[in-house]
């Protein structure tokens, strides 16, 4: 785990209102695993840090993806190249991508695309064929960047690719990784109990101390999205107790 001030290097738009920020954070870039996140703080910003999955690595840079969902993310998107953002990370327990399965589907809805480029990297390194399945409400809300041997687009209104949800568009594969709104993940869990899903929760410290990011478990009790999570076996989560939508999130 590292705490450092990272310079904002670049920003690009990848869907309507969806941006990728590139930050100079060498020790994090060199150690982060797919599904892990960074907790970002900036000045003037909100009191608490905000968690973001690491989207891609580019040399010594890490990338995060976001939309303006609140005052904090709006501030982040107004920052200029050269300004610094405090980065704490890498945090959490990411995807398990050990060799074995011959194919994997990376299934994302909206900002749930966040952990998928690194997952594609690590899945390929483990010898898997990667199917990229990405959904959004409309074509212009789809993240334009995809990284799969096969790419499937899904839109609720049918304006591009499969008409329906990303989950419904997934072909037969050995392994499913999913990230998106919790209600989407709950549907994925009923179809693939062994899927690995990255959940969204409110988060306080990001380091396991505050117990704010409680994830309800089927076996009873809670554990911490920031420490044992944010990636879980889908069938282990008590989905009915997990808030189905939050205004800011791991992916936002």
């Amino acid at each position, binding site marked *: 785990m590292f*705490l450092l001030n990272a310079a904002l290097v670049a920003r690009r738009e990848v869907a309507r209102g969806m941006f990728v920020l590139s930050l100079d954070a060498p020790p994090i870039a060199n150690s982060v695993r797919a599904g892990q996140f960074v907790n970002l703080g900036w000045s003037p910003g909100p009191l608490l840090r905000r968690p973001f999955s690491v989207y891609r690595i580019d040399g010594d840079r890490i990338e995060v993806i976001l939309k303006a969902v609140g005052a904090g993310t709006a501030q982040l998107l107004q920052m200029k190249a050269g300004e610094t953002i405090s980065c704490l990370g890498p945090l959490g327990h990411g995807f398990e991508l050990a060799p074995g399965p011959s194919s994997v589907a990376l299934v994302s809805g909206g900002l749930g695309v966040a952990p998928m480029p690194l997952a594609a990297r690590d899945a390929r390194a483990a010898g898997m064929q990667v199917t990229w399945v990405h959904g959004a409400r409309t074509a212009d809300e789809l993240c334009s960047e995809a990284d799969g041997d096969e790419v499937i687009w899904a839109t609720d209104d049918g304006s591009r690719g499969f008409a329906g949800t990303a989950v419904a568009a997934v072909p037969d594969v050995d392994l499913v990784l999913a990230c998106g709104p919790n209600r989407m993940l709950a549907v994925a869990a009923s179809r693939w109990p062994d899927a690995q899903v990255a959940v969204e929760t*409110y988060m306080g410290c990001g380091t396991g101390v*505050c*117990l*704010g990011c*409680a994830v309800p478990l089927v076996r009873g009790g*809670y554990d911490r999205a920031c420490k044992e999570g944010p990636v879980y076996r889908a069938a282990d989560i008590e989905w009915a107790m997990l*808030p189905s939508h939050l205004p800011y999130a791991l992916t936002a």
Partner: protein
Amino acid sequence: MTLDLSVEVGGLRLRGPVLAASGTFGYGTEVPLLERRGLGAMVSKGIFLRPRAGTPPPRIVETPSGMLNAIGLQGPGVEGLIRDYAPQWAEWDFPVFVNVNGESAAEYGELAARLDGVPGVAGFEINISCPNVEQGGLYFGNDPRAAAAVTEAVRKRTDLPVWVKLTPMVTDIAVIARACEAAGADALCAVNTFVGMSIDLNARQPRLSFRTGGLSGPAIRPLAVHLAHQAARAVNIPVIGIGGIMCAEDALEFLVAGCAAVQVGTATFVNPGAIAEVHDGIATYLAEQGFASLAELPRYLPRD
């Protein structure tokens, strides 16, 4: 030149006046990069006799300059604490206080008896102010007789230092402070979180599943400085100030207002190095103002 920042708090010499507040530092084992150099003492996450699952999510929400939490004292229970954490504390170079909780005065006493003499346990912080449990907690904190009964129940079972953490949700904190002092407390911690509520306008219901939560962070600091000051004026035992301390200047406000030491909480979530920075900043201030030690810092503490 090294400034002497050590303080005497309720019979215990601490190497510095900056302590880690309960619930914001876990059991001290969670954050590897955390700078412990400036830590005068640590107060553990609140513990009950038995394990507790805590409240359903959402448990925290940010509010202007603060945060609401309703964790519900999730924890492993006293046996888990003794097995998993106390042995580590015994190796550390700063004292660890256990934040104790119960649903009755007898339960607080039992907890103290079980922990008394366990290596690694330096003392107790009695929590009579948690707003996030259905039974006990805050109830003991806003009635002077109940506060005294809990304090006495712990006092009778241990010779270790006993601190009592007060709630701000009272009409007159001086009354509670005096009751705890008379019942044998060695020091008081002022204050715990304020009870607050935040509403989600899309769902048209509270943002927290527990409906209400404890408000912490800079939003409460002036309120907390005033309450800690009132408590310090009311008693002859030390008062440890708590509430929204983010930097050394914030801590110094509590110290000048009559506190012997301070606890830093929410700031640690934002900045894992906050405690060391506050500690160093106090030293810098004292040096700049021409004081050789914290003991020389004048306190604004007119007697009633």
